[in-house]
């Protein structure tokens, strides 16, 4: 009887953001589906903004109910049982299968896909919100469900026949996989070696080789990155393929035994003359399609991080209220309530960053889909560019900071449980293990920083801070703004000190600078939240206390270091 959507007012707050009016109008292209006489079967299209928002709310209530009543309660048995391998095929745990059945019956596959393929045609915000909710219930299951992201990539880049063929199947509940990683190509995807060659006799591409660490590798439809160009070594020789499991040629050789997200099968796949279709243009596999795919997958991981953080915080809060020591609930001790307040501030701040990023993605994606139908106006084109740039900047920033926060929250949540948290008796040990992957997959934090540091060096984050600074605010919140302005100046100084040096020095301090930028941006977002709902002031206050101290530490580190220091950190020079 639990509902993970309605019990969390934060979600509704973000769903009701003022920019939604614009976002939904763009996504629904002025609500034309409803009135299109040719559009048979579109009787679920919204009439107007209010109708669309009402649908988002009600559908998220369904998501919340399934998560509270089915997926959440199944999480423990799924973690325990895990998937199994049978004759080269993956068999899900019983609970996982129940989850999938419920999700499919509720029509929650293909949430963001167009109606003509049977999708719900929702914008990214409610889709990401569903990912946030599902991740709170079971982070491992969030992967199996969240891989419908791949369908988004098919929708963006495949031809009409392929869309017609595959997207309908996804909307009907078939699961997907994003088949990129190989034993020697992890962070460095340019090294992918899985071979694709066109067989003139069979009139199809055939794939040969091995893929590793493939989440839901046994899924019905996969996007596979493979080397289509002979005698090439780098990313420009790679293309993307759609592989249909029904065609055979792939065996699951092994299931990894993992620390966390145990319900989500991580597969080693062997391709032997597996037939596949080319998706989009040859040679654009990595440089265009996988980049797009990774960006939406990263947004999904931000949502997953926030959802796991939410779950961990709630477990800790519940435990701290009930656990009596020294004659009172432990939540009354400063050492405990301080931790809980910071945890809550981190969840709330990273959630605000998540939805800000999702709004940017929504804006540019909707405009880009409209551009396929008609020419955009000059203003619209500029708008699209602006939001795409913002989305590209915020995604690695959000992925790195939210996933690190998620780990910190899970660590503290377990700590609050004391010895009990270390036992298998409470959900927190599972949540703690599940949290760990978020800062690793879809690009480690270190790799996110490589992408995000460009936002520092080009001044793009700074420009955003200045934009936020210009937003009108209520007089009683000006003191918070002053803190943020001060933090911005501190950030500018640190940045100036670093960027004048060489590339190695920038890389050395990159994480510290990105963290500083992220903290300021999250601070501003919370300040905006306070404008809309005053109840966020406490969270903002706690977050600023935390963020200011954190940024001061980073600034001190940077302030007391120079180029000569680097040698002291290098392994070969450590004499002890």
């Amino acid at each position, binding site marked *: *009887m639990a509902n993970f959507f309605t019990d969390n007012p934060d979600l509704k707050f973000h769903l009701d953001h003022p920019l939604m009016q614009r976002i939904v109008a763009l996504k629904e292209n002025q609500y034309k589906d409803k009135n299109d006489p040719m559009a048979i079967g579109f*009787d*679920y*299209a*919204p009439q107007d903004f209010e109708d669309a928002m*009402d*649908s988002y709310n*009600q*559908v998220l209530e*369904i998501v919340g*109910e*399934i998560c509270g009543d*089915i997926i959440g309660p199944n999480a423990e048995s799924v973690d325990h049982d895990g998937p199994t391998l049978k004759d080269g095929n993956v068999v899900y745990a019983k609970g996982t299968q129940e989850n999938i059945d*419920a999700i499919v*019956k*509720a*029509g*929650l596959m293909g*949430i963001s896909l167009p109606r003509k393929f049977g999708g*719900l045609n929702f914008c990214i915000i409610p889709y990401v919100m569903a990912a946030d909710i599902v991740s709170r219930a079971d982070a491992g299951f969030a992967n199996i469900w969240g891989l419908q992201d791949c369908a988004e990539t098919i929708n963006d880049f495949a031809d009409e026949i392929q869309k017609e063929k595959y997207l309908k199947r996804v909307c009907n509940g078939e699961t997907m996989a994003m088949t990129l990683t190989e034993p020697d190509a992890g962070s460095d995807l340019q090294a992918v070696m899985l071979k694709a060659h066109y067989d003139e006799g069979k009139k199809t591409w055939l794939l040969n080789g091995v893929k590793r660490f493939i989440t839901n590798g046994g899924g019905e439809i996969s996007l596979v990155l493979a080397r289509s160009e002979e005698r090439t070594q780098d990313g420009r020789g790679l293309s993307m393929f759609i592989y249909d499991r029904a065609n055979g040629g792939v065996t699951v050789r092994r299931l990894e035994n993992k620390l966390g997200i145990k319900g989500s099968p991580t597969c080693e796949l062997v391709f032997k003359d597996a037939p596949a279709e080319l998706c989009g243009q040859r040679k654009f596999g990595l440089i265009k399609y996988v980049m797009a795919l990774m960006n939406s997958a990263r947004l999904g991981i931000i949502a997953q991080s926030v959802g796991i953080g939410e779950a961990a915080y709630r477990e800790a809060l519940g435990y701290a209220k009930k656990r009596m020591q020294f004659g009172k609930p432990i939540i009354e001790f400063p050492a405990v309530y301080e931790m809980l307040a910071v945890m809550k501030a981190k969840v709330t701040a990273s959630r605000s960053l998540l939805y800000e990023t999702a709004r940017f993605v929504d804006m540019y994606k909707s405009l880009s889909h409209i551009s396929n139908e008609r020419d955009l106006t000059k203003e619209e084109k500029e708008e699209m560019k602006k939001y795409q740039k913002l989305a590209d900047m915020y995604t690695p920033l959000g992925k790195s900071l939210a996933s690190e926060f998620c780990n910190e929250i899970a660590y503290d949540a377990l700590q609050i449980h004391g010895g009990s948290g270390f036992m298998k008796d409470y959900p927190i040990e599972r949540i703690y293990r599940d949290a760990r992957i978020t800062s690793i997959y879809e690009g480690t934090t270190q790799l996110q920083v490589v992408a995000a540091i460009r936002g520092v060096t080009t001044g793009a984050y700074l420009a955003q801070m200045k934009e936020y600074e210009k937003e009108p605010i209520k007089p009683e919140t000006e003191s918070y703004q002053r803190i943020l302005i001060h933090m911005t100046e501190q950030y500018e100084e640190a940045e100036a000190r670093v960027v004048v040096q060489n590339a190695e020095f920038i890389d050395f301090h990159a994480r510290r600078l990105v963290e500083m930028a992220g903290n300021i941006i999250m601070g501003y977002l919370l300040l905006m939240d306070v404008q809309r709902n005053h109840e966020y002031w406490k969270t903002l206050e706690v977050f600023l206390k935390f963020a200011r101290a954190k940024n001061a530490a980073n600034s001190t580190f940077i302030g007391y270091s120079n180029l000569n220091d680097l040698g002291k950190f290098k392994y070969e020079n450590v004499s002890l």
Partner: protein
Amino acid sequence: MNAFKIIVLAKQVPDTRNVGKDAMKADGTVNRAVLPAIFNPEDLHALEQALRIKDQFPESIITLLTMGPVRAAEILREGFYRGADDGILLTDRAFAGSDTLATSYSLSCAIKKIKDFDIIICGRQAIDGDTAQVGPQVAEKLHIPQITYCEEIQAIDKKKITVKRRLERGVEVVECALPVLITVNNSAPHCRPRNAKRLMKFKHATTMSKHQETGGDYLATENANTHLSIKEWGISNIDCEHVQLGLAGSPTKVKKVDNIVFQSKESKRIDDFDEDISLLMKELIDSHIIG
């Protein structure tokens, strides 16, 4: 291919599962104002059984029938979201105050008007009255066989239906010819979730009276979107004897309602010493609670 015409009887009830301290009024009657109105849980189990028949035989048609105030249209929409094809709201002031006899009479009259059906499925009982009488009474009035306490419909074809019954001391598998009325237990599978697309499609479905009340265009709704109008039947729509309806047709009179508070009469404190525990074990074994 086989296809079945299924009627599911459903009731909107106050959610007595989340009872707070103000759930009962001082006079001992249910304070409906503070309790949310929900789809009676066992009727949802019944709907799921109907939907499973439809999964197997997609041409089947499920009609939800409910009797209640205009507001009860909510559970018909709920049913549409989960997969029901059609819904009828039996509503009229004349039905007010019905006990189980009057209710089953009204429902059976409505079913006679629907006429064409193979199976009627309903929950065993409603959580507000807990009588478990309406289903069996409807079957009697229609002169059709009934199977109560169903947990699973194991097989069905045009000739017969095979049903697993969950009884107090075990299970029983029975076969029966159609048409038949089945009441479903809460040990049967939960109803599937609401479907997102069906929700968006049917959320605007209303009864005519509600539609006119909110100033909608009567004709436009009727013609453009037939699925958006919920059938609303009053006493003039069904063939019935008025004396058998509502309060007049209800021989049950509530004399008095007592508030019962469950509480343990005695308690015993046992510490975690070996001696205490073995004494407790002995007591539990002697009283056959364990062992």
